């Protein structure tokens, strides 16, 4: 069967995990490798139901190390492959992902954040930001999209495959337990019908021709003999990442013109924040909203411009300052006051954001 899984625009009502599976199908992903961990399990459940209908496959591996490394194998073979994980699974996944960074492998990973440290809870947390952006023993040569809605999950899962294969960088869709488990409406579509070009994958190995005679053999490694050799490779990566930093950052903002306060949040927390800021603005308060969509690279330029136009920033997150750390790095040298509203491992309500915001502009 090769019919398109989705034709036309289709309004649906489903869980975030189901959205991801559909989006991966729509993005023409070919193989998923995965290992069970809540709250991402249903991505595998839906994928295994959809996959055979569209000539796609799945392998349940023995652990997340294997899920990451088999995904790498699939990418080397030239297939659009992906995996999904969470929490302690994201920790184990850092080993293959560091390898993907070093070898510039376009693996796509969907992270549905759990609470932490360790096993903690299975829902609503933003405590995997540091791990997803800068995990591994490297420099964070990764691309991370933090989604807030089911529409985001669909759009950015498709985008993740395109960006990964275009820039040859490991690319993440960073959701959370809420998004994974909750149901809300969204519009699904076939990306090509909307004019979104799907970047074609290319094999690293198994190319035509006799290696060493008709073509050079593909020799891929992540171990180097000398410091200089490694330094050269890393410098190349740095250069490639500079291009990414110029081209990729995405954010959403409103009301940041000469604001008394701008509330910054990402992912699911941005929903409560947006709701709160809208309500406060309706009351006549001069408060703005800023949501980084890419957490790696951060939208540095937009953030710095915003910082020049505001008196205070309130950072809201379901973690103890993981977003704030990224934010401070982006705003290095700016004197704007940054005030935290950290709720690690627990959700944030619009009421809390409103209350804190009122205090800050009073």
């Amino acid at each position: 069967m090769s019919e398109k899984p989705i034709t036309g625009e289709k309004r649906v009502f489903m869980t975030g995990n189901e959205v991801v599976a559909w989006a991966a199908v729509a993005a023409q992903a070919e193989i998923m490798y995965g290992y069970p961990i809540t709250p991402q399990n249903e991505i595998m459940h839906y994928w295994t139901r959809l996959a055979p209908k569209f000539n796609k496959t799945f392998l349940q591996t023995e652990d997340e190390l294997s899920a990451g490394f088999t995904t790498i194998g699939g990418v080397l073979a030239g297939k659009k492959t992906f995996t999904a994980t969470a929490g302690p699974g994201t920790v184990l996944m850092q080993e293959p992902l560091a390898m993907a960074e070093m070898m510039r492998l376009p693996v796509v990973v969907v992270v549905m954040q759990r609470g932490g440290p360790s096993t903690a809870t299975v829902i609503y947390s933003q405590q995997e930001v540091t791990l997803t952006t800068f995990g591994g023993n490297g420099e964070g040569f990764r691309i991370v999209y933090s989604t807030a809605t089911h529409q985001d999950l669909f759009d950015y899962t498709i985008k993740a495959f395109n960006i990964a294969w275009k820039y040859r960088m490991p690319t993440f869709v960073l959701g959370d337990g809420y998004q994974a488990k909750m149901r809300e409406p969204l519009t699904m579509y076939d990306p090509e019908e909307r004019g979104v070009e799907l970047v074609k994958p290319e094999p690293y190995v198994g190319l035509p021709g006799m290696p060493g005679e008709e073509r050079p053999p593909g020799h891929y490694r992540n171990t180097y003999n000398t410091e200089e050799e490694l330094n050269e490779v890393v410098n190349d990566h740095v250069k490639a990442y500079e291009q990414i930093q110029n081209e990729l950052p995405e954010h959403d903002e409103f009301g940041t013109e000469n604001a008394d306060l701008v509330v910054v949040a990402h992912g699911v927390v941005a929903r409560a924040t947006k709701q709160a800021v809208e309500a406060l603005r309706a009351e006549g308060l001069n408060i703005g909203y800023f949501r980084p969509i890419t957490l790696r690279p951060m939208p540095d330029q937009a953030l710095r411009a915003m910082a020049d136009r505001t008196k205070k920033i309130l950072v809201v997150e379901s973690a103890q300052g993981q977003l704030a750390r990224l934010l401070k790095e982006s705003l290095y040298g700016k004197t704007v006051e940054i005030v935290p509203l950290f709720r690690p491992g627990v959700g944030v309500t619009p009421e809390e954001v409103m209350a804190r915001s009122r205090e800050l502009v009073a």
Partner: protein
Amino acid sequence: MAKLAKIMIAGEGGQGIQAVAEILAEAAYEEGKHVLYIPNFGVEQRGGVSVAFLQIGDEPIGSPKFEIADIIVALSERAVGRTRQYVGAPTVFVYDTMVATGKVELPTGAAKVLAIPGVETAKKELHPRVFNVMIMGAVIEATKVVSPENAKKAIEKRLGYKFEQDPKLRELNYRAIERGMELVGEVLRGGQG
């Protein structure tokens, strides 16, 4: 935010809480409303209190998490305890008369606290299996988030294949919705709380 209904249904595993929430969510979605449904928090997917968080409104829904629910239906002692933190001034708190109020403290500060004889009515008048559908009727009456007709359609969509085999089941389910609505209607009119 005015027209947004924040609903919380809680009970023991096996009481059919999530099925009710799902049908309600589907019905509201089919009506063209904005809906956000979260089945459970926590690791308590096995052996814990089953909780459904449901938001239904006319505008896109923001935060999935809310502080205060507009309506809470708690169907066991543990469920009463689990939902208490979501009770506030606007909350209509509905619990089943089977809940041993001696064992658990009912919330204070709600707009209304209502007891409905759900388990008992289902057992005596209908069938224990449609208890949850009756509860759905209760929620519909208390919130008006969907019309009874659309709720019936949603049930039809979900259980239609069973109704084909046994049309009596359809009637039983429909009666359960109506009876649930009546129960809440009665207590609301009775002015308890």
